Structure formats: C-alpha cells, structure tokens
C-alpha cells in the first residue's frame, strides 16, 4: 500500500469521522434546544407534520406527546364512559390490583389530512363503513386542516389503518387516514385523575360513591400512568406484552443451562432461549417501540416511519441471496438493496447501499415487499445501554403479503441503535436488517399450522390468560391467529 493510498484512506477516515460527529452533534442540538425539524422533512410529505402545531419542546414524532393546544369538540364524559363500558371484560381475566380489561391501555391518534372539509358525523360514518371493527372516536376535533380523534386498542388502530386508501369523498377525492401511537387524550387523563381524587375522598369517608358508574377497578391509576409516566409500571408492560405472548413466556424462563449448545449425546438442536432486556423499564420502552414500529411497517405505507428515524440515521440490509441458488431466488427483492460486505467489493456500491438520512432510509423501506410480522414470536436482546442510547436486536419472522413471493415466510434479525426522545419513544440512529428465507419447519410453525401454547410451569394462569387475550385480539383485528390456539 503506497503513501497515496494511505493518504486517501486517512482522508476518507477523516470524512467518515466528521460525518459521525456531525450526526451526533445534530442530534444533541435538536433534542436540547427543541429545534423544529428542517423543511427538508416536510417536503417528504410526512403527513404527521403537515399543518400540525409543533411542540416547542422536542421535534414532532408520531410517538411523542401530542400537541398541548387545540380547539374543538371535546368529548363528554359519557362518551368516555361508553367507550370503557363497551369493552369485553370477562371476570375471570381480572387480576388482583390490575386493570380488568387487558386489551386496553394503548391509545392511538387518527389523523385525516384536510379533514376540515368534512362534517364530523359524515366523516366518521364514512370511515366506519370501511372499518372492519366498530370504533369509538374520542375527542374528535379539527386542528388546522386536519380532523383528528383518538381510539383505544391496538387492534382497532390496525383496522383503521387499513381504511387508508379505501374511502373517497363526494368529489371522488381520496380521504386518507393515518394512525399514530399516542398518549391518552387529555379528557381521559383528567377523568382518571379526578377519579383518583374522588376515590381517595370516598374511601376516607368510608362509603362507596354510588353515583359514579365507572368502577375503580376498571380505571385504575395505572391507566393514566400507562400513558404519562415513565414506562416502568408492571401494568404498562402487561398491556404491551399481550401482543407478545411468547416474549412473556420466554422471558420468565429460568436461565438456560450452559450445556445447552451442541450436546453431542443427544444430537439434538438446542432450543431458543429467552429474550434479554436488562430491566423492566427498558423492556417496556423497547416493546412499545417495536409495537409502534411494526404497526406502521405492516400497514402498507411505510412513510409513517419517517418520524421514527433521526435525520442522519443509517440503514442497511443484508440477505444471503445467491443468484445461482434457485431456492433463494425469492429473496431477489431484498437482494437489490443487500449490502453483504463479504460479497460486495465495489466501494462505491458499499457506500451507496448504506442508506444515510431518514428520507433515503424510508425510500428504501418503501420499495421492500409488504409484510406481516409475527410479533408474538419476537425474541429481543437489549445489548447495551448508555446515557444517550440503547442498542437492541430483534429476531423474528414475517410473511410477505403481496407480489411474486406472497405468503413466503422470512426470518430476520434487526439491530437498532436508538436514543430515547420521550418517556416511551425512541429515535433510530442505526438500523441493520438481515433477512433470509424461513426453513420449512419455521414456516410450518408460524403462519400455517396451529402450535400448542408453550407450557409455562411457573405461570399456568398467565398462559391460559394469554390464549383468551389472543382470541379477543384475533376477533377484534380479524387476524388469523389460530396457530396460537391449542
């Protein structure tokens, strides 16, 4: 290697390091001073930012606390009440000291861009007409050009997300519907707070307040803490973990024996070991992030992921595609973006395939096949944490839901480095995705054949409860989750 090569290498290295520093400095400046995102972001047509009042604290993300100021229709208490009472609450699912309705607790904001043009009842009827499940809108209001409302339950949010692209107004213009995870609406939070105060007063007086139709067990303090406090409450984790039953099961396993790998005597493959989170707080944060991320990733419109990424995030994808191996040919859609540095020697291609900026990243993600991820079988490793960031990997499976490889099942490993930007949201700095074909066994086990629920000898009640939760979720979402039933 001559001097020129060394010089060039050092120059490139200097450029690379300056990119790293700029990325890092940009991020820390934005967070500390609450700078509004650049116009560059708006040009991408991120619907969440168009016409929305921007928080003066941190930059707007769909995961963040909704704007503090609005005008419009606040739902009355009876609306909230009707919402609560409409839930299914089989008594046997109640756990001591916990919320009775385990499928509630996750709020989502629904945004209809240019919804100001439409009358409330007309618009809601239009959406309900295409929505596979009934929903109860909370705090419907207009904000600048948008119509907005809240719904509770991830399954309803999923169903509303599917309405996007399927409804038109009387002028034959498409009405868009976007779904974003959110805190509980203010009226709900206020209701809970006053409930708490009331209950405290009533209990100290030694009698129940019969005039309140909302039972204290149904609306425990944990519901508001689910939405506003740092996610280290056990009930917060419970509501998220409903959608990750295998994580719950695996996480409660005892530590595996160190002799688990390659036991020659049995010639048996080892079994998959449980997730590692490090702490309950991180577990809640990560799972909440994953739920939000894959809600949008599977929605058919990945533009919503723009707000999940830092402006100068990095993303790359690798797949073991081999053009000569017909078995792997169905991965060709991924191969176009694949950056397997073992095979890829062209330095300019190496640079090109490392997507660097949120716009490039989302552009790349949008061309990948549409997917349906199996959240219930995610295995997560939280592998390090600093003051500024956490790094974790997700292993799991997904199915392609359209195109030439429709119904093909893939396995993936995805590593994120992310910085917390609020109590329960993360901003992705690095995203590394590996995709390969699922083996016949893996395919069989997930999306096609019913699999007996894993026995959890230390949590027998919970496993049965999981099945009930899954059944409810399946009914509400319309998703075929038969394979999770016995």
């Amino acid at each position, binding site marked *: 290697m001559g001097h020129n090569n060394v010089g060039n*290498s*050092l120059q*490139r*290295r200097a450029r*690379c*390091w300056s990119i*790293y520093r700029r990325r*890092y400095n940009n991020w820390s400046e934005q967070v500390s001073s609450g700078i509004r995102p650049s116009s560059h972001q708006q040009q991408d047509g991120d619907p969440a930012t168009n016409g929305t009042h921007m928080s003066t604290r941190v930059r707007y993300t769909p995961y963040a606390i909704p704007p503090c100021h609005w005008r419009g229709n606040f739902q009355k208490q009876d609306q909230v009440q009707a919402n609560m009472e409409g839930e299914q609450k089989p008594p046997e699912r109640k756990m001591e000291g916990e919320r009775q309705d385990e499928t509630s607790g996750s709020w989502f904001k629904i945004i209809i861009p240019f919804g100001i043009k439409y009358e409330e009842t007309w618009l809601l009827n239009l959406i309900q007409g295409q929505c596979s499940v009934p929903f109860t809108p909370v705090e419907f209001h207009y904000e600048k050009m948008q119509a907005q409302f809240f719904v509770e339950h991830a399954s309803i949010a999923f169903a509303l997300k599917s309405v996007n692209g399927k409804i038109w107004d009387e002028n034959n213009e498409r009405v868009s519907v976007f779904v974003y995870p959110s805190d509980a609406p203010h009226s709900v939070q206020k209701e809970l707070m006053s409930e708490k105060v009331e209950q405290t007063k009533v209990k100290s007086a030694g009698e129940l307040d019969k005039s309140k139709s909302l039972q204290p067990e149904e609306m425990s303090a944990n519901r508001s803490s689910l939405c506003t406090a740092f996610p280290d409450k056990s009930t917060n984790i419970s509501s998220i973990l409903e959608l990750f039953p*295998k994580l719950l099961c695996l996480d409660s396993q005892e*530590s*595996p024996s*160190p*002799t688990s*790998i*390659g*036991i*020659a005597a049995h010639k048996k*493959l*080892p*079994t*998959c*070991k*449980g*997730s*590692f989170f490090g702490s309950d707080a991180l577990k809640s944060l990560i799972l909440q992030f994953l739920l939000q991320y894959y809600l949008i990733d599977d929605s058919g419109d990945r533009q919503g992921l723009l707000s999940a990424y830092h402006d100068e995030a*990095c993303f*790359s994808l*690798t*797949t*073991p595609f081999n053009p000569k191996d017909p078995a792997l040919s169905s991965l060709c859609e991924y191969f176009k973006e694949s*950056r*397997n540095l*073992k*095979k890829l020697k062209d*330095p300019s291609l190496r640079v090109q395939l*490392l997507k660097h900026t949120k716009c490039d990243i989302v552009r790349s993600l949008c061309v990948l096949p549409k997917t349906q991820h199996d959240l219930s079988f995610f*295995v997560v*490793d*939280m*592998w*390090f944490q*600093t003051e500024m960031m956490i*790094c974790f*990997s997700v*292993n799991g*499976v997904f199915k392609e839901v359209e195109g030439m490889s429709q119904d093909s099942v893939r396995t993936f*490993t995805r*590593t994120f*480095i992310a*910085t917390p930007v609020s109590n329960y949201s993360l901003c992705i*700095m*690095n995203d*590394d995705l*590996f995709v*390969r074909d699922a083996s016949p*066994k*893996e395919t069989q*086990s997930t999306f096609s054949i019913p*699999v*007996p629920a894993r026995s959890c000898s230390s949590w027998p009640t919970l496993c049965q409860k999981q099945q009930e939760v899954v059944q409810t979720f399946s009914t509400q979402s319309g998703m075929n989750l038969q394979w999770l039933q016995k």
Partner: protein
Amino acid sequence: MGDQPIWEQIRSSLIQHYYQLFDNDRTQLDTMSIDASCLTWEGQQFQGKAAIAGKLSSLPFQKIQQSLMAQDHQPTPDSCIISMVVGQLTVDEDPIMRFHQMFLLKNINDAWACTSAVFRLALHDFG
C-alpha cells in the same frame, strides 16, 4: 483487497481475528475485550473480561468451526462501528447451525476493542 478505508480494513481484520481465535483457542479471546465489555450470549448477559472469558471457555464442546455468510457494518453516532455477522457453525459432530452475531467496536487510545457483542443461534422454536 480493494480501495477500502482504513477503518473498514481494521473492522474486517478484527472480525476475522475473533473467529480465528474462537475456533482455535477461545481462551485468548479476552485480548479483544476490555473491562467494560459486555456479552449477551443466547439471552444471558456477561459483564467484564473475566465473566466473558469464563462463559466462552465453559462452552461445552471440543471442536468448533464457523464460517461467515454475510457481514455488514455501520458507523454509530459515537464513532464506534456496529458490525453484523451471519454464519454457520458446527460443534463436535453436531449438525450445522446458523448463527448471527453483532459486535460493537470502539477505538480506545488508538486501539480497537470489542465493547459489546451479542450471539444468537438462528433458532425459531415455536413448539
């Protein structure tokens, strides 16, 4: 070799070095970690050189052979490199298994060390 930036060369030689040591003499792997290093191995976390060395030395096989199928890496905001590896391994006479591993490489006082790593066998046990 191609016209690689120096940090890419460092990264790929570090990874290669790791797997050579792993396959031939795991006891020497502690030269690549530091006291602040952390390893998450199949869902269990080990902190510090001694714990990591203990875990790797105690893995219950005589022979291991690993081959890499895919690699990728990215720069991180704090000037580290995150490196992803997918490969296949076989231990003793057992069937081939896939694995994936991630490394976080950091430059400390002009020397590169692995400050964090995760290892997972590519198993999806849905039974």
